[in-house]
């Protein structure tokens, strides 16, 4: 196994042309994913998590474009690649699982067809072999009676089963990178736990690297090795999960952690009427970002300095990076 990271995203800037103005969507996002490891990409909606994923896959919607920065998979830049070369990587070397299992599968083809499609395309299997492999994949994602389910149409499956099919489809060609965009948000909590443990099992088996996009820090704690917190298109904080969760340094990370309700059982059970910590305000819409630190309007610690100028990245210890004036000042002091 090589020591270089499998995926390197450097200073990624993505913008959208809405017909009137060009608005920044991502502004200098940097992170990397090592082979066989899992990166959690965290933030509220509108922070640019999904756009990061689509930029890596080369599937940005119309009007969006990468302005600068680089995305390297296995040392090769995806951005300088021709569209056909990039297409051949999709579904074979890197693949993606989307949030909505209800709408992400084509309603008019059987799940077997849809899983087998990638195999026929990338591994040039014939129809019979693709079907056999599709059944194997369905078994691997723990769908009962895969020989029958392979001929089912998506509407005949429950939400959880459809998400399993999506995973089977994404992993059919044993990709090196799997991007999961809120894979369990639309599912029941009992099913969520099953999907996560399935992903972990398959990751161990195939050595796939995973980018887990989520708004749920609990899921990150459970699944990820590293984490990057995005806020309003910027990377607020990044580092190993252990460091970040034990010692969150950005006020946004801290706010997210403290406002997430957590189940406490037994003697630790909460008395009812227990208020939560709040992060006031909301993520600003595209194009209405503060000139200074983008989090400053919502930040309880913000001062004049924070409102005036955007903060630089500071390194804390060996692996933690934070984008906050307060941390910069502390370090200087």
């Amino acid at each position, binding site marked *: 196994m090589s020591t270089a990271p499998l995926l390197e995203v450097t200073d990624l800037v993505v913008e959208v042309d*809405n*017909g009137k103005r060009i608005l920044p969507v991502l502004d200098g996002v940097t992170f990397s994913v090592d082979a066989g490891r899992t990166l959690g990409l965290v933030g509220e909606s509108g922070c640019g998590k999904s756009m990061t994923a689509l930029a890596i896959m080369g599937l940005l919607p119309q*009007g969006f474009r990468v302005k600068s920065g680089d995305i390297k998979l296995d040392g090769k830049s995806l951005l300088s690649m021709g569209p056909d070369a990039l297409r051949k990587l999709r579904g074979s070397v890197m693949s993606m699982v989307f949030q909505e299992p209800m709408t992400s599968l084509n309603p008019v083809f059987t799940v077997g067809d849809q899983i087998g499609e990638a195999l026929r395309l990338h591994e040039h299997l014939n129809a019979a072999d693709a079907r056999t492999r599709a059944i194997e994949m369905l078994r691997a994602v723990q769908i009962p009676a895969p020989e029958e389910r392979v001929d089912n149409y998506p509407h005949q499956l429950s939400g959880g089963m459809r998400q399993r099919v999506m995973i089977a489809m994404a992993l059919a060609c044993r990709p090196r990178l799997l991007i999961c965009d809120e894979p369990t948000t639309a599912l029941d909590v009992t099913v969520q736990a099953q999907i996560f443990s399935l992903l972990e099992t398959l990751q161990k088996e195939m050595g796939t690297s995973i980018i887990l996009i989520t708004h749920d820090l609990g899921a990150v704690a459970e699944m990820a090795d590293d984490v990057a917190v995005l806020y309003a298109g910027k990377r607020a904080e990044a580092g190993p999960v252990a460091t970040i969760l034990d010692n969150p340094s950005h*006020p946004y990370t*801290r*706010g997210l952690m*403290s*406002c997430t309700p957590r189940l406490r059982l037994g003697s630790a059970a909460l008395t009812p009427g*227990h*208020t939560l*910590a*709040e*992060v*006031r*305000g*909301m993520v600003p819409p595209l194009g209405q970002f503060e000139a200074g630190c983008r989090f400053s309007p*919502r930040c*309880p610690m913000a001062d004049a300095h924070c409102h005036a100028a955007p903060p630089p990245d500071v390194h804390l210890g060996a692996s933690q990076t934070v984008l906050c004036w307060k941390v910069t000042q502390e370090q200087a002091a």
Partner: protein
Amino acid sequence: MSVVSMDKSPSVAEPAVVLASKPQNPQVEALLLFLRNGTAALGLSMMAIIVVMCLIGPGLYGIDPYAIVNVPFAPPGTPGALFGTDFLGRDILAGVLIGGRPTLIVGCVAAAMTIGIGVLIGCMAGYFGGWIDRALMKFTEFFQVLPALLLAMVIVSIFEASLLTITLAIGIVGWPQAARLTRAEFLRIRDLEYVRATRTAGARDFYLIFNTILPGALPPIIVASALTTGGSILFESGLSFLGLGDPNMMSWGVMIGQNRNYLLEAWWTVSIPGIAIFLTVLAISLIGDGINDALNPRMRKR
């Protein structure tokens, strides 16, 4: 003040979030969008010209469309007959000017009838559901199976052709599409949470149907109305062309029907009234397109 505070809820109401200052009425915005739309403007101005010409054109032009004013088949450009004359020697331009009246009246009234019946039946079926829905939909299906033009032909020929019977015939055969459309919209909106919220706010059925659900269902119905008006005009001219129009009225369809046997000798007798129908329906569908663009949320987002 620390906002990330634990356990203690703020005693005063939290600071109001910064809000946009100007209200943006979605209906007003759609209207503005419609008026700014090039297609719609073109259609509207064409329609305005056509209506004005039909209203005051005959008076201004002053030639009796039923009178024989020249030799038959005088070609366009003949002095005194700008668009030529027909097989009897009647002035084509005078005919075109006056012939728009029955066509436009029948078209608009029939379309209003079609939409009215259709929306009412669609509302009832979609809102109440159950056996009411099933009965009304069977009824609608029945009318959809009947060949519309044929039925209208029969009705008109049984009850004698007049503006009234023609309008009624078109209205009776045309409504099923509007009913289906309205019903589909009602089914979609009926279970939206804001409708439930309005019911818990103490609304009666009548209020829910006409004040809450119908306004939401209107956009596609309005677009369909434009298409239906155009359709009714085509329908009327088809009937007139077949000789089933009001025999006492000059209309565009009648002119084409009467002159069609002389098409090869005098192309203008058929072409010119046809162009009139074509331009009218075109204007209406341009307006319909404009409305559609203005109301289509997907176009508005980008």
